[in-house]
């Protein structure tokens, strides 16, 4: 089930009412969790009931491993439990997501050096959100192993944590130590928080339906026929994809976080205006934060992180970004995209630059020339890398990039102008509210008539200008 679907319009109110009524009828946290599990499994089964067992299996693996790790056993046993858990979970993920890719690559490589091997065409169905819920579940045994969290004996709460429908298919990837306690206590309805959640859902909807889905056909069409396009048009298309991907994924995240608020849950922030970053390091502190922090905490830091000599640090960064790339999918384009982002970090490491923690142009409307230059440069580097992310193959990415630099001439396609205005409107709106968790948040301060008029205007704009029934969320495929 997609958030932007008719089925979800029916599903959400039913789940919402059942959840809060269950909480009120004396069942407390357990009753709320049972409703949440039922709703989440129904949500998942609506997409494909055949793979529901996988969600249950990953959850059970996580829960049991937590109990085993909590036992007062020796370090070797604990390590064995953790390794087994990782092998099982990542093995399932690897089989569904990467097995076909590795087999294809191996076959191609063998054929390339002259071996005669049959080509196996594996048609493995990729379970929706597998990477997301596997990674979220893994935070639990990893944190218990590190003694940063306690194992829970509340299986119902754990199942609810591992399957909450709002974050099931595309995150944000929460940490067990932050989320699990929320499921273990009865959630109380908070009127202001629920309204804030609805507002954030609305903003996510605007980004998805109005921006991302309107840009998607242009990008798809252009990538299908880039051979006949000129540099300027291709550059504009690359920018469109950057905005499309951001609007799509951050729109999903806003909706997920907003839905979490409706159910009294605090989900982690996933985006913090990444295109207003002054360096690629800052970009990765603001883009898909729940995932990049996961990689930082469970890959980069265990490798030694920053507290090592520079060559080793560079190696750690490259390995981490390689993981980022591979996590996205079984394709060489993602591998190159990940490594390219890793390479972007190296000048900063060599020059000893620190990543700024504050918001750009903090307290000011206009950035300084230096800030604007750094922001533009970072944006263009991201745009360049997204070409690999979007391309269907390395050859296509190389073709697009080649035409960037070798096909001048031809003016800007006039059809693109309204879409450029759409991108500009989104970015300007977000710039003005970049100190807020999400762009519409400040509407809460306006008088009711103005606020409601704004909501009406946004919803009518969505209806009239939105691309309805268009593409699913991009990150759902990961």
């Amino acid at each position, binding site marked *: 089930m997609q958030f932007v679907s*008719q089925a979800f319009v029916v599903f959400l109110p039913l789940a919402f009412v059942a959840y809060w009524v269950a909480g009120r009828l004396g069942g407390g946290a357990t009753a709320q969790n049972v409703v949440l599990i039922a709703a989440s499994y129904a949500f998942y089964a609506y997409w494909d009931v055949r793979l529901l067992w996988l969600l249950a299996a990953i959850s059970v693996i996580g829960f049991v491993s937590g109990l085993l790790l909590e036992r007062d056993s020796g370090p070797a046993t604990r390590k064995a439990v953790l390794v087994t858990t990782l092998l099982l979970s990542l093995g399932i993920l690897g089989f569904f997501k990467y097995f076909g890719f590795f087999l294809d690559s191996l076959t191609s490589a063998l054929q390339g050096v002259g071996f005669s091997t049959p080509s196996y065409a594996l048609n493995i169905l990729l379970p929706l959100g597998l990477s997301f819920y596997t990674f979220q579940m893994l935070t639990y045994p990893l944190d218990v192993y590190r003694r940063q969290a306690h194992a829970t004996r509340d299986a119902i709460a754990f199942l609810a944590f591992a399957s909450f429908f709002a974050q099931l298919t595309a995150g944000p990837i929460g940490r067990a130590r932050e989320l699990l306690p929320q499921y273990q206590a009865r959630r109380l309805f908070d009127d202001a928080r629920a309204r804030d959640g609805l507002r954030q859902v609305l903003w996510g909807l605007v980004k998805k339906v109005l921006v991302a889905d309107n840009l998607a056909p242009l990008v798809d069409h252009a990538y299908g026929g880039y051979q006949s396009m000129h540099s300027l048009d291709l550059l504009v298309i690359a920018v469109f994809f950057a905005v499309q991907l951001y609007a799509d994924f951050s729109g999903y995240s806003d909706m997920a976080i907003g839905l979490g608020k409706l159910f009294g849950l605090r989900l982690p922030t996933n985006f913090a205006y990444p295109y207003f970053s002054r360096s690629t390091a800052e970009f990765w502190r603001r883009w898909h934060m729940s995932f990049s922090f996961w990689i930082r905490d469970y890959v980069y830091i265990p490798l030694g992180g920053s507290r090592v000599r520079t060559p080793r640090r560079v190696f750690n960064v490259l390995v981490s970004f390689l993981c980022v790339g591979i996590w996205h999918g079984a394709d060489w384009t993602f591998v190159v995209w990940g490594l390219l982002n890793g390479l972007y970090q190296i000048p900063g490491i060599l020059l000893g630059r620190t990543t700024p923690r504050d918001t750009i142009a903090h307290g000011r409307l206009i950035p300084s020339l230096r800030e604007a230059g750094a922001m533009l440069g970072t944006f263009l580097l991201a745009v360049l890398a997204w070409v690999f992310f979007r391309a269907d193959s390395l050859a296509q990415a190389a073709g697009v990039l080649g035409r960037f630099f070798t096909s001048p001439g031809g003016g800007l396609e006039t059809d693109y102008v309204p879409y450029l205005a759409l991108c500009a409107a989104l970015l300007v709106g977000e710039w003005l509210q970049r100190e807020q968790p999400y762009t519409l948040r400040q509407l809460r301060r306006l008088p009711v008539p103005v606020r409601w008029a704004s*909501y009406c205007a946004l919803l009518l704009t969505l209806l009239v200008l939105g691309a309805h029934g268009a593409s699913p969320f991009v990150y759902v495929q990961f």
Partner: protein
Amino acid sequence: MVKFALRLGVFLFVLAVVAEVFFRTIIPATSLPGSYMDPRDEIFRFDSTWVTSGTNTHGRFGLRPAAWRVNSAGWNSQFDYTSSQEKERPRIALLGDSFIEGFPTDVDTHVDAYLHELAGGQADVYAFGRSGWYLAQYVALARYAEQRFAPDIYVIFLNYQDIQDSLRENGVKTPYAYQITQDGAGFRELEPPVRFVFTPRSKLLRRSAIVRYVRGNLRLTWGRTEAVVEDANLRPGGGAAEAQEASPLLQPAADHMIERLVTEHPGRDFLFVVDGDRDAIYAGDAVDPPRPELDVLRRAVQGHANVRILDLQPVYRAVYARDRRRFDGADGNHWDAYGNRVVAEAVFIALTADQQLPPRQD
């Protein structure tokens, strides 16, 4: 939570009111008549007891408004039809699909209106058109027209794959249209598979501009088949000729349907008007693309003195060479007012040339 629900309810009510006003004034939602399958004759047509006039608009911005009017017989026409007993002058029946239904243009700029005008009042022109119809449906429709209105001439408009679509062997193409199927050595007529009813619920929903906008302008449905499929013929390209492998059943099916028409309506004249490939003409193609169904039709009408064919391709070609003006509207397929006029003139010339209509005195 109750306070939250109440507040949300009030907001949704306000939103609904604002949206209703918005889609009635700023962006006018399309309005289309209701349809049902008349159980008396099993013909799908408009409900003349409900809303009988309105404006059809297109797309998300509610553009290209076109007025429609449902007459007392349940057809989109500016004329009211009288029964066969009240016949005062020769009658021409136009049978067709969405081109004759005519929602893309104002009702007074349809082929029937122009033909009536060209005939100078010497003949009544009755149009019977619904989107997505094809030849097998016209056989059944002619029976209905004969029984109710007794026309003297049947002008039947064909385009795309109207013979192929008539065969159930190729699947159900339009759920409210008759088809034929091979039955032993011959063919058998099949009634429309869906009996559409214009329910009170549909009537109520269609009062809402929001519903009409969402369904009619945005074309979003709640996963159910809509009774009104006014653009079922709208296919990309607007070309009439889709070169295809001719099915072996095509010729016998066409022979059967023409035979049925002729034998069921002795003494009547038939003129088949076959749409051309307008895109080929606009593109400047000197050679006409192949049109297998036209060839099949030509063979089927051989030996029937009262059945003729008017191929619009040479008409389009000649008029386009003269005026350099397209015949279709913004949807790139259906005729605009000018296209309707051109076709009406061509039909009028064909009918007067065959002396089925007397030439105009002026």
